């Protein structure tokens, strides 16, 4: 028994030394040893050569292209100029729209996880898991072993180290008033690098020349809490975002001591004013609602009212290696992180877009739309007019009223005395 203990201790110490020299030290100085690059290469190769992994295979292949082709004809087009009367067939329009939404709707589609065209050897992405071939099953089995026995413990250790040093580090830095900025940046950078490694994250930064400058506002699309780490990996930001509870809450409360982050309750509009007051001179990132990597929803226009230079940033995850979408109403942060850590890797592209400023006479909403489109265009994301808030809250009744109003206009000419003809027609 003692011998076993000694061996275990030796293995552990070797393991920790390796982790320290190969991962933690490089993180501190911001250098890469190229291990993750090699890992990624092996991964790409494996997924390529595995039969069924790449090749679309009915029953296995998940559908990306959708179920139906929508009819985009508007109500006005259908009615045309031919009439201003009600007809019994008018319900066909709403009816068709309604059933189309039942079969496939843009919003709920975006909030559930993005579906893959090919299987990436993770059980969770293969809903109709069928036996395909012995070879594929063996590869999948090895994958499970590697992911759960090798990668998971390493990642959990790294994440624990990262999160702990983030909390301890920022709290300590918070106590020192004088050299705060420089130190806080170091802590943030180091910890986020450790955390990115904990997720086997490979991040590609594009157009670095457009990297946000001090004093500007950086706006990014937002898929999950790891966006924050990914952005911080390349520079320190003061964040503005939704306050969370649990583990996220602990981290948020700690970091706020070192860096002027602002965390607000989604429902507390009061804080929005606080945000505008505090942001002077700081660089901060604003997040739109978590959405699953295929689209950009309406940005909260708060940050666009202030003016100043906006640096749009587009973040797009590669779903091939793991799904980074956090459905916060379904999974807690811990189970979400577990899902991520048992995936292959997180591969993500970050595009720094040219800075934009508000044009003269342009209102905040329009400006926000413009920034949103530029992000959507770059990230290859679809643009959605829906407010991200739809995800949880009931749909605003105004959207319904608008349709009713439009329809009313069609069947009654300027609210005219249509009724006059009604009585005489039967004569």
């Amino acid at each position, binding site marked *: 028994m003692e011998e076993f203990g000694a061996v275990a201790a030796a293995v552990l110490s070797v393991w920790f030394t390796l982790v320290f020299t190969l991962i933690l030290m490089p993180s501190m100085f911001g250098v890469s040893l190229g291990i993750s690059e090699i890992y990624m290469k092996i991964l790409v190769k494996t997924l390529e050569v595995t039969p069924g992994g790449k090749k679309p295979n*009915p*029953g296995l292949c*998940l*559908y990306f*292209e959708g*179920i*139906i*082709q*929508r*009819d985009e004809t508007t109500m006005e087009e259908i009615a045309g100029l031919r009439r201003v*009367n*009600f007809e*019994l*067939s*008018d*319900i*066909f*329009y*709403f*009816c*068709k*729209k*309604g*059933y*189309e*939404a*039942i*079969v*496939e*709707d*843009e*919003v*709920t589609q975006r909030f*559930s996880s993005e579906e893959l065209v090919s299987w990436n050897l993770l*059980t969770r992405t293969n*809903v*109709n*898991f069928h036996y395909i071939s012995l070879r594929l099953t063996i590869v999948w089995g090895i994958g499970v072993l590697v992911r759960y026995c090798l990668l998971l413990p390493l990642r959990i250790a790294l994440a624990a180290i990262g999160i702990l040093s983030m909390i301890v580090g920022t709290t300590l830095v918070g106590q020192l008033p004088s050299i705060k900025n420089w130190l806080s940046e170091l802590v943030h950078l180091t910890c986020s690098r450790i955390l990115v490694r904990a997720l086997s994250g490979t991040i590609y930064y594009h157009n670095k020349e457009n990297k946000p400058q001090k004093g500007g506002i950086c706006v990014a699309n937002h898929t999950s809490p790891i966006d924050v780490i990914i952005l911080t990996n390349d520079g320190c930001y003061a964040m503005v975002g939704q306050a969370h509870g649990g583990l996220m809450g602990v981290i948020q409360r700690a970091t706020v001591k070192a860096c002027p982050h602002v965390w607000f309750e989604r429902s507390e509009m009061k804080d929005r004013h606080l945000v505008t007051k505090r942001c002077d001179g700081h660089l901060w990132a604003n997040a739109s609602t978590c959405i699953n990597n295929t689209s950009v929803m309406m940005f909260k226009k708060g940050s666009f009212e202030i003016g100043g230079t906006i640096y749009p940033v587009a973040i797009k995850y590669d779903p091939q290696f793991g799904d980074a979408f956090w459905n916060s109403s379904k999974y807690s942060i811990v189970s979400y992180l577990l899902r991520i850590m048992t995936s292959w890797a997180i591969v993500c592209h970050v595009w720094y877009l040219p800075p934009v400023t508000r044009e003269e006479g342009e209102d905040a909403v329009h400006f926000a739309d413009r920034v949103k489109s530029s992000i959507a265009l770059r990230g290859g994301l679809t643009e959605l007019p*829906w407010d991200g808030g*739809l995800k949880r809250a*009931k*749909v605003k*009744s105004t*959207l*319904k009223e608008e*349709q*009713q*109003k439009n*329809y*009313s*206009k069609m*069947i*009654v000419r300027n*609210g005219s005395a*249509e*009724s006059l*003809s*009604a009585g005489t*027609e*039967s004569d």
Partner: protein
Amino acid sequence: MGSRASTLLRDEEIEEIKKETGFSHSQITRLYSRFTSLDKGENGTLSREDFQRIPELAINPLGDRIINAFFSEGEDQVNFRGFMRTLAHFRPIEDNEKSKDQNGPEPLNSRSNKLHFAFRLYDLDKDDKISRDELLQVLRMMVGVNISDEQLGSIADRTIQEADQDGDSAISFTEFVKVLEKVDVEQKMSIRFLH
């Protein structure tokens, strides 16, 4: 990750649904995946609330009636079979279906079944007649608060007068069909399902 076995669709079931609705194998599996994603209770059936959670449907003026069509009298759950049966009304009519032999039952997506489906959206009490009240209810749903009771009443009266042939001040299914004689129901009541 857990076992997905309970949510899998058996081949026999797919065959039966295929026969009943005319959907293809891959259409059925895709719609099944949609069905399960709507099924938040994860019990294999959908409730009215499950449908109401679709934002686009929630803003549809006729949303409630559309949802209602999935549920048979007194039921508050619909299973995948029923879900598919309702959706089958919206399958486009394919060329080879038009000339089909008359022996089998009429397909759910025939012109007459599409019309009957639309008729039932109006006919809430299922007495095979659209009464003035029933028509008014649907009208009110579509126009909201934008048109006065008086005006809406006269629209309803005129619609009934134009359709009514037997003088009972209501619209029967036969009369309904007659009014929509020239309407391209096949196109307007069809959704382009991908193959």
